[in-house]
């Protein structure tokens, strides 16, 4: 099973080998409301940990998506451009944003596990 890690800004990264699939959590999509636009980075872009990597706009607000770890964008989910609502419907699956080739796997240790993230959410409500 793939290892999933979470940020305090509600991005997830699902790690498979040296690549991680990045998206936003179900909590994040719920807070945003209906997503109407997703702006994705170009493939090949190098991002630092915590740097702005994408933009998601909902009926409510536009928010930045930050790279959970440093690396190179190796794939983006083009399907979101014509169907941004997928982020609401299936954030953990078809609503993924980008795949990042992880530069430094040790950065993953600084992120939250599933259990940590669940208890983090409990502190927010």
């Amino acid at each position: 099973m793939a290892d999933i890690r979470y940020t305090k800004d509600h991005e997830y990264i699902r790690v498979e080998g040296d690549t991680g699939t990045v998206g936003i959590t179900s909590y994040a999509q719920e807070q945003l409301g209906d997503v109407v636009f997703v702006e994705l980075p170009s493939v090949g872009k190098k991002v630092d940990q915590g740097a702005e990597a994408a933009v998601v706009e909902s009926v409510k607000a536009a928010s930045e998506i930050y790279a959970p770890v440093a690396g190179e964008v190796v794939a983006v989910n083009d399907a979101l451009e014509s169907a941004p609502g997928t982020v609401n419907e299936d954030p953990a699956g078809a609503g993924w944003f980008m795949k990042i080739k992880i530069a430094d796997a040790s950065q993953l240790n600084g992120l939250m596990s599933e259990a940590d993230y669940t208890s983090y959410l409990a502190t927010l409500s």
Partner: protein
Amino acid sequence: MLNRQGRPSQAGDSGLHSIKTFTGNRALEQVEPLLFEIGRLEATGVDLDEPAAFTPRLGGLVRKDGIGLPGLSEPETMRHFVRLSQKNYAIDTGIFPLGSCTMKHNPRLNEAMARLPGFADIHPLQPQSTVQGALDLIAQLKDWLKELTGMPDVDMTPKAGAHGELSGMMAIKAAIIAKGEAATRTVVLVPESAHGTNPATAALIGFTVKPVPARENGLVHVDDVKALLGPDIAAIMLTNPNTCGLFEKDIVAIADAVHAAGAFFYCDGANFNAIVGKVRPGDLGVDAMHINLHKTFSTPHGGGGPGAGPVVLSDRLAAFAPLPLLEKNGNSFALCESEKTAEARGAHPYGRITAFQGQMGMFVRAFAYMLSHGADGMRQASEDAVLNANYIRAGLRDLMSQPFGDKPCMHEALFDDQWLKETGVTTLDFAKAMIDEGFHPMTMYFPLVVHGAMLIEPTESESKASLDLFVAALRDLAMAAKAGDTERFTQAPRLAPRRRLDETLAARKPVLKWVPPTPLSEAAE
């Protein structure tokens, strides 16, 4: 055709939409093309002689082609703009319940006064001796604003609410610089429920913004502010009544704590209309507060006219007000335009935020509103605005959910989308269905701290009959949503000239230039 949210963007083939007309017009609802599409390049509405031959002195900059403006006759031009105006929805056509926007009636008396030649036909650059009446009006308006707010001074120059915020915060920054604390006091506290302009204003002039969380009751608690106060805090920006339509009960304690920490208290006065004649911001410990003349004092806005955002200032900030300063010498008035002169009189203007003395036309309208209502009338307007909001709240509370419990509100009623869960209808769908019922939708998805927010501000302008119809229509919609009539919402607006437009794409990739259609002969190649 569906937009990217899966909602219809074009009229369908069913019902009324299936009736076709030759022209595309639908009785009184006429199709209105662009001027470029009506006009003809080769025609002109005015006959002008060919200019006499002359030698241009523009060198290589002489225009080589025509500029491509369409020619129209005077009636064609009139009809175009009148038809466009008829497509508009305005406070003059129906209830405009946009929360936080205060779309109140613009009394026609204001308009008559603003058109008096002594106000309408003057220019900011003409000699001050010839505009004494206008300056006198500004001086009297200043006195009324000071009286209503309990504040010692007012900067009249800002031209909108956010402009006023900027001017007030620049005065605060100037005061901090004067105290020699510019290097340390760099953070501005802003509650999560604030208008977006608050953090934007603070950031624009170089402050770092730190959010203050709201409690479960929708209010800011003094302990949460105290926990954040320190030598790095320059100011707090607080809206009262806040954007949830609630009065911040801790405001005096917050002001005291902020002052004890050596910081300033900026109050966003956008919702002053709820408390005029009831509460004086000066008594709450406010250092600066902008007043939206276009909301609280009924001057037209939202496409109907420019805003005007005078800022009242406390004794701690008055000296830093921007130029020009209005002075009274005996029976005459003068504008002090020079920093040197101001300094000689002990003032330290932070500079200038606009070229002239402010929004004169709006000053006249706001002052006409004040004089025609009087102090008691303005107090009643505030009371009626609060009463009307609570009437709507009471009329809908059994069907729609309130985020902070079933408690009285100030001038606007706030609902969330808890009650729409499991119906398949969103706040946006509900707002679109209101268009089919002939209403402008309420403010939606703001304040951000409330999920699927619907913020309804009826203002004091609406009669009981108008409120009753509005409440009855919203009850009918709410019951339809709960009964599973989802189509009424997901298909809405069904009866408007346009349906769901791709608002995101329009904002992201706006089409700002008209491009002539490709001629058929070329398109075929």
